[in-house]
Every structure is written in structure tokens, then in C-alpha cells.
């Protein structure tokens, strides 16, 4: 819009309100994570009376946080990598190739995105039980079960976004490469993937964030040994007491990997969205 004086005044007001709205909860988390436990209960102190780093040291011993961290990393990275790979292949077929059943496949993938996880939770549990009974393959309480669950749940969005992105890449690019003798798959790997990098990064970030913050399936499909961070943080609250300062410190630590990754790639994210999903 055209920047009149009124526009600038309005912009300053709106952006200040939005910034405060975003900032206050973040400030509460960070400031609480730096307070001693005695200052955390009672009237909330906007300006901490005393600042200490000890919550950041205590979090590792109160709860096996490192173990949960490791579990979350393994599950999330595997799920993201697999999801992106599977989505790239399927999205390329949808965007570039003609085949019977293409519409049915796209429709099925898209419509599964509609349904809440809760509808799949119990059936999936039962199927995993049956697989264990029949083959001995342990899918409950193992990394594998959560990995394939998470990767499948991020697939519809990933396929949909990537196929939009691939479709926006000029066909001439890969045709030139195929004439040079690379073949379809060669064209996909050597021409399409490098050009589609922003879209792929956007999808990977989306998958990573979804899996890292998932609670519902983790609550049923993990056990003490494979528990992820989303459930592990609960342990800072016991029956009688909540270690709010440690809980907040752990929240900061848990958020850092996604936050740093997100900030590094957010430019790609906007670019990927504007040429992929929005069109």
C-alpha cells in the first residue's frame, strides 16, 4: 500500500501490538528460566530479583533430558529425511508424469490430511500389536513405529506443496537435460532438485517442526526408553510441585534446535510457499 503519514502511524501501532503479543510469553519463558525456584511461585516478577543459570544445569539431572533429546533427534531426523524423499518422488510423478489413477492417488493423499490423529491412534495401535504378534517386529515403544507414523502424517502436505512447486518449474529445463542423455531420474536429481531447493527446505522444516512437537502418538507409542521430549518435559511437574524454572529452561533448550534451523531457512520458507502452495 502507499505510505501516507496515516499509514505509517497505523503501521507503527499495529506492529507494536503484534510484537508485544508475541514477545510477552517468550519473555515469561526466558525470564522464568533464569530465576531461582523460590522466586517462581507467588506474584509474577516481571523484573527478576535474582538471576541464576542453575536451572539450566539442573534440568539434565532432574529428568533424563539428554536421553529424551536423543530420542527426539533420532525420530525427527529419520522421519523428516524419509518423508522428504518419499514426497519428492511422488510429487514429481504427480507434477510431471501422466498415469492412470493419478487423480485417485492425489485425492486419497489429500483427503487423509483432513482427519485428526485421534481417529488413527487406536487402530494404529491395534495394527502394530498385530504386526508384533505375527512377525515379532516391535513397533510400539520403538523408534521405528513413531518414525513411520510421523513421516506418513507429514506426507500429504509435503506431496501437495512439492508437486505445486515442481509444476512451476519450466519443463524445458529437464527436457534439455534429458536430451543430453540423463533420463527422467537423472533430470529429477540433477535439474529439478537443485532448482526446487527452497520448496524442499520448506517441506523439510514443516516435517521437522511437526514431528518435534507431536504429543498424541508419542503418548501411546513410546515407552520409558524411547520417550520423546514432548512427553519428557512433563516430568518437571510432580504430584506436589512444579519446577517451573527448570521447565522453562528445558523449554528454551528444546526449542533452540528448531528455532535456529527455522531462522536459518525462513527466507526459503517464504519463497517456497509463495511459488508452491499459494499458487
Amino acid at each position, binding site marked *: *500500500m502507499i505510505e501516507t503519514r496515516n499509514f505509517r502511524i497505523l503501521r507503527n501501532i499495529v506492529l507494536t501490538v503484534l510484537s508485544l503479543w508475541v514477545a510477552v510469553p517468550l519473555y*515469561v519463558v526466558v525470564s522464568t528460566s533464569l530465576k531461582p525456584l523460590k522466586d517462581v511461585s507467588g506474584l509474577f516478577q516481571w523484573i527478576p530479583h535474582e538471576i541464576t543459570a542453575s536451572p539450566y544445569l539442573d534440568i539434565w539431572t532432574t529428568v533424563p533430558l539428554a536421553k529424551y533429546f536423543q530420542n527426539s533427534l533420532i525420530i525427527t531426523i529419520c522421519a523428516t529425511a524419509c518423508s522428504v524423499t518419499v514426497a519428492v518422488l*511422488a510429487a514429481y510423478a504427480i507434477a510431471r508424469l501422466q498415469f492412470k489413477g493419478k487423480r485417485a492417488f492425489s485425492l486419497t493423499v489429500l483427503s487423509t490430511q483432513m482427519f485428526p490423529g485421534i481417529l488413527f491412534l487406536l487402530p494404529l495401535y491395534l495394527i502394530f500389536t498385530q504386526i508384533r504378534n505375527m512377525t515379532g517386529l516391535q513397533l510400539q515403544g520403538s523408534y521405528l513405529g513413531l518414525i513411520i507414523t510421523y513421516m506418513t502424517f507429514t506426507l500429504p502436505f509435503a506431496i501437495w506443496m512439492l508437486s505445486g512447486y515442481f509444476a512451476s518449474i519450466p519443463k524445458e529445463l529437464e527436457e534439455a537435460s534429458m536430451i543430453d542423455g540423463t533420463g527422467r531420474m537423472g533430470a529429477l536429481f540433477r535439474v529439478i532438485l537443485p532448482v526446487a531447493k527452497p520448496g524442499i527446505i520448506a517441506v523439510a522444516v514443516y516435517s521437522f517442526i511437526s514431528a518435534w512437537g507431536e504429543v498424541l502418538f508419542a503418548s501411546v507409542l513410546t515407552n520409558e526408553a524411547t520417550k520423546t521430549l514432548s512427553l519428557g518435559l512433563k516430568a518437571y511437574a510432580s504430584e506436589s510441585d512444579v519446577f517451573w524454572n527448570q521447565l522453562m529452561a528445558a523449554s528454551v533448550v528444546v526449542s533452540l534446535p528448531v528455532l535456529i534451523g527455522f531462522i536459518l531457512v525462513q527466507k526459503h520458507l517464504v519463497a517456497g510457499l509463495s511459488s508452491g502452495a499459494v499458487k
Partner: protein
Amino acid sequence: MSHSALDSGPAAAGSTAALDPGPGQPEAGSTPQLRKRRRSFLPYGLILPAAILELLIHIGPMLLGIWIAFISLTQLNLTNWLNAPFVGLQNFINGLNPESTIGQAFFSTVGRTLGYTILVVGFSWVLGMAGAVFLSSNFKGRALLRTFFLVPYALPAYVGTIAWAFMFNQRDGAVNQILVDTFRLFGDERPFWLLGENSFGAMVVVNVWQLWPFAFLMLMAALQNVPTDVYEAAAIDGATLWQQFRRITLPMVRPANGVLLMVMSLWTFNQFNIPFVLFGASSPNEATLISPLIYQNSFGSWNFGLGGAMSVLLLIALFIASVFYIRMVLPKGADND
């Protein structure tokens, strides 16, 4: 990469043949056909992994979920569920009778979830639009603010909820400090936010805080495609800011808007994480949404058949919604493009 090495052979032969159909090549007629046949398997190979996962994790469980609604499944026969007795429509009759308490709870929960969805999506859209409009013009600090506004979306969902739970939680929490002590809103009263009627509003606030950056992100991406000279022309013709917004910005983002609203509505309607972290496994009655209700019935009271019957109704409702959704997302005749 072994794939591409395998593929390059016939495809390369095919394209040379197409380029150079000289009379000295008697096989030129058959090669394109060979190429076509080989190609016709390639798409299925490419979608195979996705199709298997969809079948195993989505379609299969969905069908099984429908089956569960018609059997008597309890804690006792859970591991031996293949032999659970078939009970017909009993679960539906028990659970969804509008006269019974459970039935009433179900139907009022559906209504509450719809209201919740409208509120959360509405507020998120307005905030996202405001952010997108005012960040689409260039000024100092714009990139920084843009990144900052996306932080609630990038945070793990439970972290944002924990932060708000702490702010709402105690009578002396940050929210009451702002509302009661600074703005003197409730007189001497210090309301509890996570109990009773207030809990619904608290949950809306948390959800909007997490969701609005997504609206902001998508709308900002859509606004990037609006050329600035349109605004300049409108301003010269004397259009006010509001008119520019109504007549230019809104129509320009309409294509992206349909999908955005639909996706946000679905996520919100299906919301589970926020109430689960905010209230624990069982929400206050006034703030129970449909996903937590099914969870409570299935894993709280171990009444899987009842949870299953509710799931089936939800499935039907969402299936109808999904028809509209797909019409919006997938252009007609995607086969022939």
C-alpha cells in the same frame, strides 16, 4: 543414484531416435513405443513408497477404525482384538443417543468445537492479515520483525502451551497481573483461567497465539505477488487505505485465502495438543473439544467402542468437508495437465 544410471540408457536411445529418425535405423519405429511402456511403469514406481505408507498408516487404520465402532473392544480383549465380539449398532445406540448424558456431551462438544474453530481461525486470520499488510512495505527492521512474528509457529507446540499455562495457571500469574493489577479489569477478583468457563477463552488465546503466524506467513507470500503500481494508481485516483485494502488486497489474496482458511479450520477443529498440555488428559467440561473427548472415552474410560462410534461420525462429517476442501485445492482435470 543407481536409478538414474539404469534409466539413462533407454531414455537416451529414445530421444536420439526421436531426434534423428534416419532411414538407416530400422528400429526407430519400435523405440518410442518401448520408451512409452517403460515410462508407464515409472510413475507407479515413484508413488509406490507413498502409496504403501498411506495404505498402512492412513487407509488401513481408517477402515479398522470403522470396524472398531461395531465391536465390543475393552481393556481385556485389546491385545486379542481380532476375536472381539461383533455388537452391531450397539455402540452408536449407547453413546450417541441425544437423550443420554454421553450423547448430549457428544453433540454439545461438536457444537463447541465448531464455535472454537470459528473464533480461533477468525482471530488468527485478522492478526495474520494485519501483520502481512504492514510488513509488505519496505522499512528498517522489516526482515527482523518478520522472523520474530514466525517464532510462535516455529516453537514446538507444547512449549508455547507450557508458557501460556504458566501465565494463566496461578492466581498470581502474569495474565492476572496484567488484567487485574495493571488494567483493574475484574475489581478485586482474581479469576482462575484454567478452570470452568474461563478455560475455553484461555484455550482460544493459546491457539490463536500459535496459529496466527501461519496465516501471516501464507498471506505474506500471497501479497508478494501483488504489484505495487496497482496501489499507486488507486492512490492517485483518491482511494483511501481501507478502499485499497478492500478493493485490491483482498481480491488479490482470494485464491490463497480459500486454502488457508480451510487448512487452518481443519487443524483447529482437530486440535488435541493444546488442551492436552493445558489441562492434562481430561479437559474441563466447558472446554472439551472433539479430539480430546474421543481420547478420554477411548483411553480414559477404556470404552473403545464408544470412542469408535464417535470417530465414525466425525469421519463422515470430515469426509463431507474434505470434498469441498479437495475441490478448492485440486483444480479440475488434474489428469490432463
